[in-house]
């Protein structure tokens, strides 16, 4: 029992996590490439043209995985932030900091592709639908987290302050989601209901799942690359970094 605890905590130190991350990154890039190629092939060549939406529906193969990842990354970020706050491990805070830009990118991508999808399907770039609105708010939460971390010079304080904000955010996300949803039903009429989408063909679902896996692997690869850069930046005064860079 005790052995396993020591084993896990070994990678809580930047010095031992740095090479581990370096070894893992190529594998995640490879997985992202394989899933991405397979997913794109299915979504462009195998999946049939939608009877109602034509070719334009293929945007969802990017849109849906990006939305999923934007929400999932916030949870992962809050998990690392909470772990860092509870156990005072340095890599956890760096991990949360490394995940935030990717999460914000996914939220922005989701909003952007959503607008591209909305224009031909609904005839408008933006509707105040519950999902769109809560995705926008999630994007704001990412921006707030990144702005707070960027504004604090001391990295340890930045980590802890960011961790508290991430945890407050994660408690608030369900509240925000449901309030926006109920707000939306109160104001029916002017909006379009997303839930009436036709059921999906099997191949479309596969394409979407493969793309989601590709996005997932890409996010891990990018976050690990970024966390390595953060480790080097913060530990630049140590001997092992000087050796590692030689």
């Amino acid at each position, binding site marked *: 029992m005790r052995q396993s605890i020591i084993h896990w905590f070994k990678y809580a130190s930047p010095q031992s996590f740095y090479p581990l991350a370096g070894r893992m990154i190529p594998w995640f890039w490879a997985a992202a490439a394989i899933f991405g190629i397979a997913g794109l092939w299915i979504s462009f060549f195998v999946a049939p043209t939608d009877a109602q939406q034509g070719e334009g529906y293929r945007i969802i193969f990017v849109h849906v995985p990006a939305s999923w990842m934007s929400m999932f990354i916030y949870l992962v970020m809050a998990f690392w932030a909470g772990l860092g*706050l509870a156990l005072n491990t340095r890599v956890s805070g760096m991990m949360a900091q490394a995940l935030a830009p990717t999460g914000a990118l996914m939220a922005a991508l989701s909003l952007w592709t959503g607008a591209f999808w909305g224009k031909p399907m609904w005839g408008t770039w933006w509707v105040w639908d519950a999902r769109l609105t809560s995705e926008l*708010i999630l994007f*704001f*939460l990412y*921006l*707030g987290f990144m*702005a*707070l971390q960027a*504004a*604090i*010079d001391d990295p*340890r*304080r930045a980590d*802890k*302050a960011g961790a*508290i*904000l991430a*945890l*407050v*955010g994660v*408690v*608030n996300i369900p*509240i*925000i989601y449901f*309030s*926006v949803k*109920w*707000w939306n039903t*109160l104001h029916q009429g002017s909006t379009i209901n997303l839930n009436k989408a036709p059921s999906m063909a099997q191949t479309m679902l596969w394409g979407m799942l493969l793309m989601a896996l590709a996005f997932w692997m890409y996010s891990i690869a990018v976050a690990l690359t970024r966390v390595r850069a953060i480790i080097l930046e913060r530990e630049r005064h140590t001997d092992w970094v000087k050796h590692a860079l030689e």
Partner: protein
Amino acid sequence: MNPLFATVRRDVLLALRRKSEVLTAVFFFVIVTSLFPLGIGPEPVLLKKIAPGILWVAALLATLLGLPRLFAADHLDGTLEQMALSPSPLGLLVAGKILAHWLLCGLPLVLLAPVLGLQFDLDPSALGILTLALLLGTPLLSLIGAIGAALTLGVRGGGVLLALLVLPLYIPALIFGAGAVEAHIAGLDVGGHLSLLAAMLVLATFFAPWATTAALRVALE
């Protein structure tokens, strides 16, 4: 409970001896709500429709205006560190400071809102709902805002950053607060909105002083 009320009394006394700071937020509230009819046009039907939203957004911004001062002065002169070292729990003192902030910043808005609502041609029962919703909602704004104020304490560009952190978290209060008045105007039941607002207030009363205390300890390190 004595330390709580001592903190409230101290903060209120300090603020009343420098009234301009309290009055700024109140006047801001009055001016912002008066700007909207000038920008949109004086049609009573339209103004009546948008009144709950405008009054609530203005209340959000006015609360935000007072937030940077919540801990800043005590942080500068070292009072906050003495509070953290004092035998009474910091969470209780922080709760006292938040309560004082609401008394100075939130309560005036609640009392002014019916008067400003008259400018927008709201009928008396709608004014009553607006006041009740603000009475439940403004403490919530102070509680959530305190977390942001503690996180941005002594940070570069704290004021703008505070807005970026806190405003997204204010959205549920805005939705149910303004929604209650809108529902009442539309002839619907407002019980649900007010209950949800009260539920969020209860949750925030429990968690927010705790999170604020954690954030303050980070800032004081």
